[in-house]
C-alpha cells in the first residue's frame, strides 16, 4: 500500500512538472489558432482550429529561410565551441600547468560583462573584419557566451573522471589528442550532449546581436524574424502570428531533444571505468 501511494505521489509530481512546463506553450498554441478580437478572450480549450496564422508565417517569404539560418548558426556555433572546449577542458582539467585557476577565472570573466555593453565594441570589430550582414558574424559573436560555458562545464566533468582511465593510454604513449578523442569523448557523451544542447538553444534564441549585425531579411535568424512579424498597423501586435511562429520554432528543438535522448542518459557504470 505505501508503495502504491509513493507511486501515485511520484506520478502526480511528474504530472505537475509537465503541466507547468507545457501550459504556457499550450496556451501559445491555443492563441496561435485565433485571430482578430477573439485573441482578447480567455479560453482553456481550443475553440476553433484555424491554421491561417501558420500559413501566414510560413508563407511570409523569408521565414523558412530564417529557420535554416538559425539552424546553421546554432549548429556551427555548437560544433566549434565543443571542439575548442573539449580540448581546452582536457588541458585545464588533466594537465598540470601554472596559472590554471587564473586562466579559468579569466575565461569566466568574459561572462561577467553585460552583453549590452559589448555590443558597440563588437559591432566595430565585426565591421572591421568585413563580417557585417553575414551569418558568420553571429557565429563569431555567439562564442562570447558559448565558449566560457562549454569550457567550464566540460572542465568540471572531466576533472571528476578517475585518474585510471587515461593511465593505460599514457603508458602506451598515446598523444593527448588520441586520449581526448579515444578515451574521454566516449565517456563524456552525457555532458557533451547536454552542454551542446543548452548552448544550441542559447544561440538559437539570441536576439540582440542578431538584430544588430544583420540587415538583410533573408539572413535574419528566428528570434529577430519573430520580432519583425507585425500586425497590419504600427501598434498592433500580431499575437496569433507570433504564437504560431513560436510553436513552429520550438518544435525542432523538441525534436532535437528526443533525438539526443539516449545520449543524455547513456552514462557510466563504475565497473566500466574501473573506479
Amino acid at each position: 500500500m505505501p508503495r502504491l501511494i509513493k507511486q501515485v505521489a511520484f506520478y502526480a509530481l511528474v504530472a505537475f512538472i509537465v503541466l507547468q512546463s507545457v501550459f504556457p506553450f499550450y496556451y501559445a498554441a491555443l492563441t496561435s489558432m485565433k485571430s482578430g478580437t477573439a485573441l482578447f478572450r480567455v479560453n482553456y480549450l481550443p475553440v476553433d482550429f484555424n491554421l491561417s496564422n501558420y500559413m501566414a508565417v510560413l508563407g511570409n517569404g523569408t521565414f523558412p529561410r530564417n529557420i535554416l539560418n538559425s539552424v546553421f548558426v546554432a549548429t556551427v556555433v555548437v560544433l566549434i565551441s565543443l571542439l575548442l572546449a573539449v580540448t581546452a577542458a582536457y588541458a585545464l582539467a588533466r594537465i598540470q600547468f601554472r596559472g590554471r585557476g587564473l586562466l579559468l577565472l579569466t575565461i569566466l570573466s568574459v561572462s561577467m560583462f553585460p552583453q549590452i555593453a559589448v555590443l558597440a565594441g563588437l559591432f566595430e570589430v565585426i565591421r572591421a573584419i568585413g563580417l557585417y550582414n553575414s551569418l558568420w558574424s553571429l557565429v563569431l559573436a555567439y562564442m562570447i557566451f558559448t565558449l566560457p560555458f562549454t569550457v567550464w562545464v566540460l572542465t568540471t566533468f572531466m576533472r571528476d573522471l578517475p585518474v585510471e582511465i587515461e593511465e593505460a593510454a599514457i603508458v602506451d604513449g598515446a598523444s593527448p589528442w588520441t586520449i581526448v578523442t579515444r578515451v574521454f569523448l566516449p565517456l563524456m557523451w552525457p555532458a557533451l550532449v547536454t552542454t551542446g544542447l543548452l548552448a544550441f538553444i542559447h544561440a538559437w534564441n539570441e536576439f540582440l546581436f542578431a538584430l544588430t549585425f544583420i540587415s538583410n531579411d533573408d539572413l535574419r535568424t528566428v528570434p529577430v524574424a519573430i520580432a519583425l512579424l507585425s500586425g497590419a498597423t504600427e501598434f498592433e501586435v500580431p499575437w496569433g502570428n507570433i504564437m504560431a511562429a513560436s510553436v513552429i520554432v520550438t518544435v525542432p528543438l523538441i525534436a532535437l531533444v528526443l533525438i539526443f535522448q539516449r545520449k543524455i542518459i547513456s552514462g557510466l557504470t563504475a565497473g566500466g571505468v574501473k573506479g
Partner: protein
Amino acid sequence: MKSLLAGCTISGAALALSLLASTAARADEISIVTGLVGNDLGLLQEQLKSFEDKTGHTVKVVSLPPSSSDQFSQYRLWLAAGNPDIDVYRTDVVWAPQLADQFIDLTPYTEDVIDEYFPSTIRSQTVDGKLVALPWYATIPGLYYRTDLLERYGKDVPKTWDEMTTTAREIMDAERADGNASMWGFLFQGAPYEGLTCDGLEWLVSSGGGNIVEADGEISVNNPNAAAALERAKSWIGTISPPGTLSYKEEDTRGIWQLGNAVFMRNWPYAYALGEQDDSAIKGKFDVAPLPAGENGESAATLGGFNLAVSKYSEHPDAAVELVKYLTSPEAQKYRVMYNSNAPTAVALYEDPEVQAKQPFALRWEDSLETAVSRPSNVTKSKYNEVSSLFWTAAYNTLSGNGSAQDNLEELELKLYQLRGNGW
C-alpha cells in the same frame, strides 16, 4: 553598381550597358530603414518600386521591429559607428534634435518644396536652423467614445476632463449594474514609457500646467495646475480606469476597447480603422473627438508622427535626398493616405476632393496640426530622452500612489535642474 560597371568597360557588352546606365543619370543602390510593418510596409514597397522605375536607383529596405525605443537604440549604434550601409532613416518627431549631428541639412535641397508642408511640421524638424528631416505623416491622438452608450444614457461628448470623468463613471456604473461586469470608463496609456509622457503632457497643457520645459529652456513643471492634472489622472486609476492601466501601452488599451469594454479611450488614429473591422465588437458604434480640456486650459493633443532623414555617412546623399523628397511629396503622401488614417503633412491634400471623399477621418486633424503640442524635444536637444524618462517616472509614481503629485513634481524639478546644468 557604379564601380561594378566601371570595372568591366573592356568588354563591348559592358560598354553598351554602361552607356545605357549613364542615360539614366547615376544609378545608385540605397538603403532605407523605416521600422514600418504590415500594410504600411507593403505600401512603402509599392512606392519604392515606382521610385526605382522612375529614377533607375535601387532601394533596399532594412527592417526593424516596430518598437520605437528599439529603433532609436539601433539608429544610435549605426550612426555612432558611421555606418554607410544605411542612407535614409525614418525618425520619430522627437528624435530630430537628438540625432541632428548625424543627419545632413536638407535646407539647400528643399527650397523649392518647403512651402508644401505645414510650417509646424517643418519647425519641429528644424534644429538650430538646420532642417534635419522632412515630415512624412503626423499622428494626433483623440478621445474615442462609444456613440451607442452616450446615446442610450443621453450624454453629450465631454468637453472637459471633469465631464468626461462624471460621464464615464455614470455609464460604467449603469452598465455594470446591467450585468456587464468588465465595463470600464476610460482607457489611457499608463505604463512608464514615452506614451505616458504624451498622455501626461496633454493633461498638463490642457490644464494650464505648462510644457514641462518651456521653449526658452525654463523648467516649468512644478506648478499647482500640473499637480492638479496629475492628481486627477491618479483618481481615475481603479475607479474609471483599470488598475492594470499602469502597464498599458496603446495596444493593451485597444484590446479592451475593441471588446466593447470601455466608454472612452485616448488613442492614436490607428485604432480607428481597426475598430471598424468586421469582427470588432464596436464596429459602427464609436467616434473620435478632440481630447477634453481642463479648467485653466484648452484641449491639447500631443503631436506624433514620422519624418525622413538622410545619414551624414551616406555614400549616395543625392540619391537619398531624391528618395526622401519623393516619398514626402504631396503625390506620394496622397497615395499613402488613401490607405491609412494618419494625417498627411502636405497642405494641399486637405483641399483634395478625392482624399476628402475617401479618407475624411485622416483630414479631421487639419486644425490640430497647427495647434498640437510638441514635446519639449527641440529645447532639451540631446537630453530629451532623459527628460521624458524623468517625467514619465514622476507621472507613473503619482499614478501608482508612490508619493503625491506635488512631491513627485518637486523632485522632478530638482532632477531637471541637475540635468540641465549650465544649459540644455
